[in-house]
C-alpha cells in the first residue's frame, strides 16, 4: 500500500479518522501526533473528524465512509454481531473510563451508597447496559436506583441542577467539565475499581481496508501507538497541541484533566509496560465474556471476530 501515485506530494497518503465524539482531552495524542509529524513520518496525512457517538462511528467505518474510527469496544462488538464489517486494530483504553459521577458533597464512596439515588443515563449506550452488571457485582439490584434516560448534554445539566443525583459517563469526559462549570468537586465510582472491567476506546477500520491495504493499516497502528506513547510522556504538550487544531474545545484545564485521566486507563495488568494499543487475546476474551453477560452481545465469538491482531506490532 501507500504506492498510490496520486496520493499527494511527499508520498503521504490522506487518511481520515473519525472520532467517537467531538474532540475532547482524550483525543490529544492524535493532534499531538499530527503536530509532531509522527503520522507524516509514517506516510500518513491524517485528517481528524468529529463523530457523533461510537455507534455511528463504527457503522460509518464499516460502510467505508471513513478510513479509520475511534470508538468504544462495546459499540464495536454490538456492530460486529449485527454484521457491520468493522474490526478493531488495537484498543487503547484498556481500562474502561465508565464510572458513576457525582458531586463529592453527595457522600458517595461505595456502590452501596447509590441506593435510592437517581441515575442519569443515555438510552442505548454501552454504559447503560453494563451498569446493571456493575450493580450486581456489588450486591445491588437495578431496582435499588431509579434510572433516567437523558440526552448526553442534558445529563450534565441534570446533575448540576440536582434533577438527578449521579450520572453514568466516562471519567475522561463529563467529570472535569461539570467540576469546572459547577465549581464543585466531582467524585467517581469507576466500574474498573469495583470489579467490572472491559475494553473501551480503540482504533478500528473496515474489513475491506484490512484486506485491500494492510500496509496502510500497519502504518496507521504504528503511528498511532507512537503518538500515544509520545503524548504519554508529555501530557501538557499533548494537551497544548489540541489548541487551535480544534477551535471549540473545553478549557485547557479541562482538556489536560481529561487527558490525564485518560492516561490512567491505557493498560491492563497484562499489558503494563507495553506500548499503548497493544492488546492480549486473554483481555479480549474477558471483555467479550463481560459483554455477553451484560447483554451487549448475545453470543460470544472468538476475539479474532472483533480484533485483527496481525496488523499490531508486538510491543
Amino acid at each position: 500500500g501507500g504506492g498510490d501515485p496520486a496520493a499527494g506530494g511527499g508520498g503521504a497518503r490522506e487518511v481520515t479518522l473519525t472520532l467517537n465524539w467531538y474532540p475532547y482531552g482524550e483525543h490529544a495524542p492524535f493532534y499531538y501526533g499530527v503536530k509532531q509529524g509522527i503520522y507524516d513520518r509514517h506516510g500518513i496525512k491524517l485528517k481528524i473528524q468529529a463523530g457523533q457517538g461510537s455507534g455511528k462511528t463504527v457503522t460509518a467505518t464499516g460502510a467505508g465512509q471513513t478510513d479509520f474510527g475511534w470508538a468504544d469496544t462495546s459499540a464495536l462488538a454490538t456492530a460486529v454481531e449485527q454484521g457491520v464489517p468493522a474490526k478493531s486494530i488495537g484498543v487503547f483504553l484498556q481500562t474502561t473510563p465508565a464510572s458513576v459521577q457525582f458531586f463529592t458533597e453527595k457522600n458517595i464512596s461505595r456502590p452501596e451508597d447509590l441506593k435510592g439515588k437517581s441515575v442519569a443515563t443515555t438510552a442505548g449506550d454501552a454504559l447503560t447496559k453494563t451498569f446493571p452488571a456493575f450493580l450486581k457485582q456489588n450486591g445491588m439490584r437495578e431496582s435499588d436506583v431509579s434510572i433516567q434516560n437523558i440526552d448526553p448534554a442534558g445529563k450534565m445539566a441534570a446533575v448540576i441542577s440536582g434533577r438527578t443525583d449521579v450520572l453514568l459517563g466516562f471519567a475522561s469526559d463529563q467529570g472535569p467539565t461539570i467540576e469546572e462549570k459547577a465549581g464543585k468537586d466531582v467524585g467517581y465510582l469507576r466500574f474498573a475499581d469495583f470489579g467490572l472491567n472491559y475494553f473501551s476506546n480503540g482504533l478500528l477500520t473496515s474489513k475491506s481496508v484490512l484486506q485491500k491495504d494492510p500496509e496502510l493499516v500497519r502504518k496507521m497502528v504504528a503511528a498511532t501507538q507512537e503518538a500515544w506513547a509520545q503524548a504519554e510522556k508529555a501530557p501538557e504538550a499533548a494537551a497544548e497541541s489540541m489548541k487551535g487544531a480544534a477551535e471549540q474545545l473545553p478549557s485547557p484545564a479541562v482538556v489536560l484533566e481529561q487527558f490525564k485521566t485518560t492516561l490512567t486507563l491505557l493498560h491492563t495488568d497484562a499489558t503494563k509496560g507495553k506500548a499503548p494499543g497493544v492488546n492480549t487475546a486473554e483481555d479480549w476474551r474477558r471483555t467479550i465474556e463481560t459483554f455477553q453477560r451484560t447483554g451487549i452481545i448475545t453470543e460470544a465469538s472468538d476475539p479474532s471476530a472483533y480484533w485483527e491482531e496481525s496488523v499490531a506490532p508486538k510491543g
Partner: protein
Amino acid sequence: MDTVSGDRWRGVVERTWRPAALMAALLVVWHLVTVTGLVEAYLVPSPARTFELMIDKWSYLWGHTWVTTVETVLGFVIAGVLGVLVAVAMVCSRTIESTAYPILLFAQVIPKIAIAPLFVVWLGFGFEPKVVVAVLMAFFPVVISTVTGLKSVDTEMLELAATMGGGPVKTFVKIRFPAALPHLFAGLKVAVTLAVTGAVVGEFVGSNEGLGYVILQANGNMDTPMLFAGLIVTSVVGVLLFLLLDLAEQLMLPWHASRRGAAVTTLPAKGGS
C-alpha cells in the same frame, strides 16, 4: 338506499386501493433490496423480520405508542389553539404582528434538541417537556397559515360586516374565521406531523418511555428491526392523525372549492327518481 351505501363502499375502495397498492409495491421493493443484500442488514432489516418483531413485541410497542400519541395530541391541540390565538392577535394589531413575528421565528428556527438541557432542568423528565417540544414544533405553521387565511378575506365582506355593526368578535367568528378555515387546515395538517416529530424529539431529550425512547435504544443497540418498527409505528401515528384532520376538513368545509372537485368536469347527475 342500497345503491347509496353501495356507492359509498365503492368510494372507499376507490380511494384506498391506490395507496394500498403503493404500500404493497414499497414492501416488495424493501423485501428485494434486503434479500438480495443490496442494502446490508445492519442498516436496513428485512420487512419479514421487522413485522415479526412488531408482532412479538406488540404490547411493548403499543405501550410506548400510546405515550407518544397522548403527548402528540396534547401538543398539537395546544399548538393549534395557541397558534390561532396568536394569529388572531397578529391580524388585529400591527403592533403585535411586528413584535411577535421575530419571537415566533426565533422559537421556530432554534433546533429544539440543542436546548435539551434547559428542558431537562426546567421541566424535568415527565410529560411536560415532550408536550412543550411538540407545541414548539407545531406552533409556527398554524400561525403562518392562519394569518394568511385571516388576511385573505374578501375586503367587501368585511365592509359589509362593519355596516352590520357586529363588532370585531362577531366579525371574526362569523366571517373571518370560517373564511380562513381552508388555510388553517393546511397549517394544521403540517402541524400535526410536526407535533409527532416534536414528541419524539422531546423523548430523545430525556424519557423512559415513548417511541423516541424505543428508537433511541434501538439505535444504541443497532437493533435495526426494532428501529424500523419504531419508525413505522411513529409514521402510522402521524398518518392516522393527519387523516383524522383530513376527515374533519371534509366534514367542516364541504363548501370549499378545493373540495368541490375539478371545475370543468362537473356533471349534473344523470337520471333521477
